[in-house]
């Protein structure tokens, strides 16, 4: 079933879901060399976002976070795609300059219908996500 959403950053990717119910700060919160979350007390601390379809409510923190996403991409440690509940500018700009597909405002709550490890397709050209 295709679930429609709003396209923030164009592109198509397939990958396994990694969910964070907490907001995420890329600047200072994620190691740009390997994609491991380093923020103290974060539910994903110690886990890598590399190659995942990263699902989180929205970004937080410094605007330099846009460049951290870019650096992750250069280091081949970026997520394959991002699904946000509601995207904010830092992550939006980061995803666009790094060419990471990003979709938000899905018609269904992603935290309900997605589980960690689900294989999904994010189509941020037509504007939907689909479980495989």
């Amino acid at each position, binding site marked *: 079933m295709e679930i429609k959403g709003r396209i*923030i950053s164009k592109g198509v990717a397939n990958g396994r879901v990694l969910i964070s119910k907490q907001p995420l700060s890329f600047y200072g919160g994620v190691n740009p060399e390997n994609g491991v979350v380093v923020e103290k007390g974060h539910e994903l601390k110690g886990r890598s976002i590399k190659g995942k379809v990263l699902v989180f409510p929205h970004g937080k923190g410094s605007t330099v976070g846009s460049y951290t996403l870019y650096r992750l991409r250069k280091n081949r440690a970026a997520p394959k795609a991002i699904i946000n509940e509601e995207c904010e500018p830092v992550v939006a700009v980061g995803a666009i300059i790094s060419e990471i597909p990003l979709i938000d405002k899905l018609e269904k709550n992603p935290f309900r219908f997605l589980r960690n490890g689900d294989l999904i397709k994010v189509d941020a050209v037509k504007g939907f996500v689909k479980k495989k």
Partner: protein
Amino acid sequence: MYLTREEEAIFDGEFGRAAQKSMEIIVALGEIYDADRLIEVKSAQIAGVSYHNIGDAGLEFLEVLAKDGKARVLATTNPAGMDLKNWRKQDIEDSFARKQLRIMNAFKKMRITTSCTCTPYIAGNLPKFREHVAWSESSAVAYANSVIGARTNREGGPSALASALTGKTANYGLHLQENRNAEVAVNVKMQLRGTSDFGALGWCIGMEIKNRIPYITGIKSASMEELKSLSASIATYGGTAMFHIDGITPERTDRPGERVAINRGNIADAYEGLNDDAAPDFISIGCPHCSLNELRKVSELLKGRKVSTELWVTTSREVKKLSDRIGYTKIIEKAGGRIACDTCVAVAPLKGRFRCMATDSAKNCYYTKGSNGFKTRFGELKTCIDAAVSGEWR
């Protein structure tokens, strides 16, 4: 959101990769904030210039954009991580300087004016009343919206750059009249004097009302430098992008129902909150960058004296040229102080070089604690210069 035929063409890549990426950024922000269309901007002020802040990722991004990106409107930059001429005198490492100069070259290639100042409005980029601009640098954003009455959102570095390369921004937030009204009335119940008092006021208001727009009453007069200091501190401590001051700022606003008062005790709290118990070994004046008038004051305070601590006076290259001509520079340097252009202490790699910084800028205290880990002393300009001479804080 509506796009004109030309905007569509940029979005589809007909004007090159850099313009296309930029348009994608602007359109995405427009979608996020429900803008109806794009509008033209007259200028851009671009933050994210210091290598200390943006690192290799930022450098690479700028070099990729510089392959075919060209500014379509007047675009100026924030301070870099070093004085671009005299970085060797600042003990900047070669490896840092090389990267910083590559960043500057990328900007130049994009026809962006590397003004390297946080005070564009006194260094060649002065918007007029009601003009739309796309500025980052939170102190300049607050100054432009409030003191000048120009219109800008608080842009990030990449989004301001995107506006420079397209000449556009999305029509939302502070570009719309209905979002520029005051939300809280703030009555100041004491007479304020000097840049540090106005910085303390920004601290108080920011802490109290966060990023809402204040309507400030009770201020009889304020100099350009005092308003610059207030702009910097209110944006730092509250995230505010705009304020109104009764009888001083140019825009009309409705008087809000919600009221708060700032009294002598609140201002004293600000001074206490920004003062650590330590003797300063580093004095920093010029956050935001000094005006010519501030350089005059510093030179008058230093005339015939010798400093015993490190003293940095930061300003724009433009203002420094006039200071050289008039002779303020010579007086300050003769006393052992140094004037640094193109940079500021918040974005220069100074960690570990000093223990405690004294300044007349409330904003400077915040960033210096965070980025360089120094203790801070906060007081009026004269107190800071006296401390530079005596090495003691009184």
